[in-house]
């Protein structure tokens, strides 16, 4: 039985990364119905931005807390800058094009970012070591062993999700975001600067992904230019699982996907080899009965 709790904890940690990235997918989809396949690369850019900050800006011998803060800021700035540029150069010109065009563009942007890092970041042809700024002994809760950075990661995911939800529910900008998601034309008529709202959406998603990138880097002690690809696909799956366009759904989907993968490894035959298979079986099963995802609203018939 104790294995269950240990694996449950593992699943929460894995799921929290999915959740943080899935939020970016789901917000952008909610606003402009774009599946931004380059979002996984925003996560990767954040990690590399954090690494670059640590290597070239953080002074030697800086206390870990200060270094962590600077790394986070560097990561967020990198991701946000990338996302804003991406929106401005690649997606905005295609705003009124058929939906397939920005989708393909997103895949192109993803490749550009991956290859850009591979070619131009020093030594990024192979994985780069990432500083473990949160270290120390593992924590033991009964039979469960969990690393400190993992606990920080799960808590961060929860706090940021709550913060994001409050932002969307309570602030003027949040209200404008919801209005834009509902009906961009009408929102514009009500005096909302839709372009600005879309940029803000990308910025929020990018910042969350950057935090996830830094946390993942610290947890594994290494990052590589391909880290965003598989993670992006998993996070997208999580967003769909929870109901794409729905913020709470993305987080729920993220944690659920993490748990399914981990528990499949533990309890199902051929678990570790087939964990992705089981994850997609769950996804398909849920989509059969709830086509719009766990918490999804009815799929808007917009094109």
């Amino acid at each position, binding site marked *: 039985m104790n294995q269950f709790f240990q694996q449950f904890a593992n699943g929460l940690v894995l799921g929290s990364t999915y959740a943080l990235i899935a939020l970016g997918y789901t917000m952008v989809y909610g606003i402009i119905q774009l599946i931004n396949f380059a979002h996984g690369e925003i996560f990767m850019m954040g990690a590399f931005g954090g690494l670059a900050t640590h290597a070239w800006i953080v002074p030697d011998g800086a206390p870990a807390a200060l270094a962590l803060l600077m790394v986070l800021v560097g990561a967020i700035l990198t991701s946000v800058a990338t996302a804003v540029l991406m929106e401005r150069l690649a997606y905005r010109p295609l705003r009124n094009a058929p939906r397939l065009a920005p989708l393909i563009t997103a895949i192109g942007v993803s490749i550009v970012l991956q290859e850009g890092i591979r070619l131009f970041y020093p030594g990024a*042809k192979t994985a780069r070591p990432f500083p473990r700024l949160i270290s120390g002994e593992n924590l033991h809760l009964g039979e469960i062993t969990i690393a400190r950075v993992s606990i920080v990661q799960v808590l961060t995911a929860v706090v940021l999700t709550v913060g994001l939800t409050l932002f969307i529910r309570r602030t003027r900008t949040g209200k404008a975001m919801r209005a834009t998601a509902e009906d961009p034309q009408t929102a514009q008529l009500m005096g909302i600067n839709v372009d600005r709202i879309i940029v803000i959406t990308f910025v929020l998603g990018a910042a969350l992904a950057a935090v996830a990138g830094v946390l*993942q880097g610290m947890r594994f002690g290494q990052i590589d230019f391909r880290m965003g*690809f598989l993670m992006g696909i998993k996070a997208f799956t999580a967003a769909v699982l929870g109901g794409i366009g729905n913020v709470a759904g993305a987080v729920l989907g993220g944690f659920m996907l993490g748990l399914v993968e981990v528990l499949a490894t533990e309890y199902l035959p051929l678990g*570790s080899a087939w964990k992705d298979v089981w994850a997609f079986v769950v996804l398909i099963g849920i989509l059969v009965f709830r086509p719009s995802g766990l918490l999804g609203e009815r799929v808007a018939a917009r094109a």
Partner: protein
Amino acid sequence: MRRTNRTFRLIAGLAVAVLVLGACGGNDDGDTGGTTDDAKILKIGVIAPLTGDLSALGLGIRNGVDLAIQQANEGNKIEGYKLELAAEDDTAKPDVGAQVATKLSSDDEVVAVVGTLNSSVAESVQPVLDGEGIAMVSPANTAIGLTMGADQKNPQRPHPNYFRVATTDAVQGPFAADFASKDLKATEVAIVHDNKTYGKGLTEAFAERFKANGGEVVLTETVNPGDKDFGAVVSRIRRAKPDLIYYGGEYPEASLLSSQIDAAGIDAPLMGGDGIYDDTFFETGGDGTVGDFATSVGAPLTELESAADFIEAYDAAGFDDPPSAYGGYAYDAANVIIKGLEEALGGGEGDSAADIATIRTDLIEAIQGVEIDGVTGPVAFDELGDTTTKVLTVYKVTAPRACAEEASGEEEDEDATTTTAAAGEEEDEDATTTTAASDAEAGDKPCWKPEKTGEFSGSDDEAAEGESDSSTTTAKDKSAGGAAE
């Protein structure tokens, strides 16, 4: 007007296309006129991952071949011909491997190919090159089936054009198992592999021998290439309490797995094959990898006299990337081809006999009989195309301080070329500080230290080259006929 214009463009386009195609497919006389009149071009291809996270190994392979070609040209080894390198990136993917193999085989200056790194890629490259009769010499493939076919007990060479200078998993797996049971005294092992041809095959060969030695496999798990979070698998390993974790796969996943195993408080070391034998393993895996083991084919390059010249020449050539695990093997593989070319072309009438198909066929025959003293030891092939050398070495990831002492005490370790710079005296270096940003300091990097070198002998089925009555490939029968009957 518009119509004529379009027609004209179409015709012009076709004309250009015909000219270009004609030029490509044309006979050899005129095209290479740019260089010299008497030297014809022959190309040695390379198929290896030149990008992606296995590029550290792949670039070492390309550079090794490049070096061999440069030396052959300088020494004018093959009279009347100039050798060139044609390197292609297989991105470690079987489908890409088949594409670039097709590309190389349609180039009628390509006589042979050095490659691939990955056994899974070799499976898709072999038939393409075989179809064109192009010799393929792999510096790194270890999967058993590449030379023995599906049935090990009754080996059938699937592709007569295929040779390898690397020792197979049929030797590497059991060698590692013997080391695990006899030297490490391990009795319970957890096995993890990545489900690829190489990783799965290696662990199967290991497990069979380990069980025969009286050990027990307490857990078998799979990881997916590209995964980062192995928390679930690590928790299972922790519960199984093995003495050793044996990993079949390559360093990107192995370094993550090793550091996560260490972070979970598991003391058992991880052991892997030549796929994890690269500096990247501990550079990215950090402290968690110290104490881990890897087997690799051949004796350590530093212990071979023949290798000193290679390392010197390699450094002098000014390549951007280190030779890595396979630079020396690639160099040997290229030299096998060059030696084969000397024999294949030497006996002929020089230029007049230079029909590419004939050269290719002769070359395969010549390579079968080539014997050279390579930088990795003597190189020759048995009737299956496998190397006759069965020497392997176990390496251990050694903590930075011990490395530095080692480096000052003995000769420089092959891979940790930087350690000598900071030799010995930096005793105050704290070996347990954070792992990152280690690029700058030379002395605080771990290294691979040779632990045990040996020739693998004690095997039952591996030595038995059974008589095969059903004859599929002609060359196999031909060569086997000479040796076995």
